[in-house]
């Protein structure tokens, strides 16, 4: 009954999405204001209906209703509650429903908070958003209905893939989708602006919060995915350049470009065409990502479902959305006039450089991701493009970006003086070079990667410090004045500083883990000790026990440094017993530290002749230096985005509320 209700709500939502796109778009075209104002209630109704549908599916999972096929395939009555809920989106159909839920949520938020957006623009933006929702709901209803019943209902379910029964992954898809779909709002605004033929600073202020929110969510989503891979897949890799990872990474890069170019539109009324194009590309890459993940056209360690029919449907959506928007762009963009003028050395030029580097690196990732597909279509040869390609082709852009970032961020708008900028940053440059030299001197081995990356990371971080010092007028004003100036700095500027600093932190983490990981694979007997870098590891033995829906073998290790115990680590091998066939998983034992992780994995028990266990175990041990800095930096970046989002100038509906706030809190400045 509940499942039918959900299905019915979804069908209603489909009808509402058609009405919500056709009426406002046509009304705006004809200038009928009553048709245009339909956009707001339609967006709200769409959200309510999709919510109902999602709630119905969640209910089916929570109550383990095994007459619903999806629940049977992905859940089990004994599974912990959090994974029953995560099971809703841990599969193809449910994750699509989550996609549409987010899409409707963003539309409803614009409808609710965007009271001061001009009626025409709002109607068109919501109309386009509704159109996208329409496409995806149709996709669900026709090829991937989550509410399909199963008769007769089996006694129990097949359980969720044990690899997915993990807190890191439970929340990975919602964040990723929040990001993907958030970019749809920027896309809808871009399409609306193209139809209107007008882009101004106010437009950029409406687009930026959505792009920022989407980007911050994507950052968290990608970070969670990478963190999950790090501790779950059993060898401490944090990024694989896998097609599915690239699928989320490309929109992330494009969103960065969009964020930065939207600033230029807002402050300087320049780069309008380009910003519109970025908004279109960012969401197109999100759609492409969905296509790659959902169609399984590319071999991927993360592909969870492969179905050609669905692939064709998404490809169709992709072609219509991307082709349509690019055609609209080609037709209408030339009419958008940019006004601001600027010199070659200026903040504008710096932001253009940022955009070029972001889009070039994105292009390289795109080429590497799609190459196997193209190559096979053309020559029939099957190839794979792995980390070596991306290390070679992607890294140079990030190096250039890190070099340029502090310079560009320090340069004033319109026209800058290169000498002046350098004079404010020379100490940061000197300190960064010093840090690089120090690392070069201290490290064993001759890889230049770590010293260079250290210098870059320090340069980015110190560049932020220099910028803050400049803003506070450190040295040229009394301390109290320094503080006052910092306290008055807009949240958007704090967001910029925190996010840029986070980038420095991540660069350092990636460089350190890549250059200095220590690895050891051996067979160890209980009681045996072995050296791991500067550490001494003692293997105490293995115990067996029972978890909620699995049995496990747990190894016990003590780690010493200079004779002092520093960690106690318990890696596990689990066997999930409630799945169709018992499924083993490996849980690494990790001791997290500020400057290093100790990472231990229990391998296979050793057997002697005749299959008699010898008591020894294969053991893999790693020291992963500065591992946590990778995700720490990602958190800082996302935090920076959120800080910037809370800047009252960018709040949706800002002008009216800011005016009221000012009136209430006067005197200002």
């Amino acid at each position, binding site marked *: 009954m509940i499942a039918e209700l959900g299905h019915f709500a979804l069908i209603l939502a489909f009808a509402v999405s058609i009405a919500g796109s056709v009426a406002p778009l046509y009304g705006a075209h004809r200038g009928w204001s009553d048709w245009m104002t339909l956009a707001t209630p339609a967006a709200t109704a769409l959200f309510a209906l999709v919510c109902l549908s999602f709630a119905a599916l969640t209910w089916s999972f929570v109550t383990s209703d095994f007459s619903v096929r999806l629940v049977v395939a992905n859940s089990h009555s004994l599974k912990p509650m959090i994974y029953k809920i995560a099971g809703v989106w841990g599969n193809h159909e449910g994750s699509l429903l989550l996609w549409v839920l987010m899409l409707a949520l963003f539309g409803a938020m614009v409808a609710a908070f965007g009271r001061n957006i001009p009626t025409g623009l709002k109607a068109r933006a919501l109309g386009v958003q509704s159109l996208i929702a329409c496409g995806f709901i149709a996709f669900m209803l026709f090829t991937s209905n989550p509410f399909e019943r199963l008769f007769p209902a089996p006694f129990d379910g097949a359980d969720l893939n044990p690899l997915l029964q993990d807190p890191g992954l439970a929340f990975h898809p919602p964040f990723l989708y929040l990001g993907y779909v958030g970019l749809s709002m920027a896309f809808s605004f871009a399409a609306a602006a193209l139809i209107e033929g007008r882009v101004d600073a106010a437009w950029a202020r409406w687009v930026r919060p959505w792009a920022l929110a989407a980007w911050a969510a994507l950052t968290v989503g990608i970070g969670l995915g990478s963190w999950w891979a790090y501790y779950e897949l059993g060898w401490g890799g944090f990024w694989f350049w896998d097609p599915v990872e690239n699928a989320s990474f490309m929109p992330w890069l494009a969103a960065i470009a969009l964020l930065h170019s939207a600033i230029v539109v807002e402050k300087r009324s320049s780069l309008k065409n380009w910003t519109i194009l970025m908004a279109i590309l960012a969401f197109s890459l999100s759609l492409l990502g969905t296509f790659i993940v959902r169609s399984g056209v590319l071999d991927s360690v993360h592909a969870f479902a*492969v179905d050609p029919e669905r692939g064709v449907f998404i490809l169709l959506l992709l072609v219509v959305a991307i082709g349509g928007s690019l055609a609209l762009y080609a037709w209408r963009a030339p009419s958008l006039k940019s006004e601001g003028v600027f010199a070659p050395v200026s903040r504008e030029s710096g932001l253009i450089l940022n955009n*070029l580097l972001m889009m070039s690196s994105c292009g390289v990732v795109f080429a590497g991701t799609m190459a196997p597909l193209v190559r096979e279509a053309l020559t029939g040869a*099957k190839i794979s493009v792995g980390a070596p390609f991306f290390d070679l082709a992607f890294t140079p852009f990030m190096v250039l970006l890190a070099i340029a970032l502090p310079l560009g961020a320090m340069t004033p708008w319109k026209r800058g003086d290169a000498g002046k900028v350098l004079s404010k940053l020379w100490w940061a440059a000197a300190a960064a070079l010093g840090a690089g030299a120090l690392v070069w001197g201290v490290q064993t081995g001759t890889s230049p990667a770590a010293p260079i990356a250290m210098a870059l990371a320090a340069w980015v971080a110190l560049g932020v410090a220099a910028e803050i010092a400049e803003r506070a007028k450190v040295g040229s004003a009394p301390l109290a004045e320094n503080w006052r100036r910092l306290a008055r700095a807009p949240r958007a500027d704090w967001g910029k500083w925190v996010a840029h600093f986070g980038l420095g932190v991540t660069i350092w983490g990636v460089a350190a883990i890549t250059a200095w990981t220590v690895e050891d694979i051996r067979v160890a007997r209980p009681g045996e000790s072995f050296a791991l870098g500067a550490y001494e590891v003692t293997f105490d033995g293995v115990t067996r026990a029972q978890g909620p829906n699995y049995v496990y073998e747990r190894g016990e290790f003590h780690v010493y440094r200079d004779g002092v115990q520093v960690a106690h680590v318990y890696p596990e091998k689990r066997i999930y017993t409630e799945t169709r066939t018992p499924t083993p998983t*490996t849980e690494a034992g990790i001791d997290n530290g500020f400057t290093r992780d100790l990472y231990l994995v229990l391998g296979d028990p050793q057997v002697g002749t005749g299959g008699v266990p010898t008591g020894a175990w294969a053991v*893999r041990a790693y020291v992963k230096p500065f591992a946590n800095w990778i995700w720490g930096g990602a958190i800082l970046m996302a935090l920076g985005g959120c800080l910037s989002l809370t800047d009252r100038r960018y709040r949706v509906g800002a002008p009216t509320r800011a005016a009221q706030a000012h009136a209430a809190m006067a005197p200002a400045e």
Partner: protein
Amino acid sequence: MAMTRKKRRIMFLAAGALAMTGATALAVVGFRESIVFFMPPAELLAKAPGPEQRLRVGGMVVEGSVVRGQGETVRFTLTDYEGSVEVAFAGVLPDLFSEGQGAVAEGYFREGRFEAREVLAKHDEKYMPRNVADTLKTPPPGT
């Protein structure tokens, strides 16, 4: 000197062209150096590529061929039902790796044996690596 719109456009295009050229050059060099070919076991045995060529081989893991617990290296046999190759791997096998299922190994073909640096296995009940599915010549006997 503030720039005119025309000058700015020229600068923009020049910078864009430079970035494009850089990206293309890097991608081309990258492809030349680091592309990894995929082949089924039969093709691997027929072509016998050199010991320094990194490649991927994929097929079904032969039932009963997996040797675990003899030191840190795991051995198993991959087959496409036309040819079979023994794979040696010193590392962590993916959790869903198992006998009678599809798997892909990446590494080097040396002295008649495949030395894997990385092993990928299917991720859930439905999933079979697409390259493996495409190249399997005959279905497993008895199904």
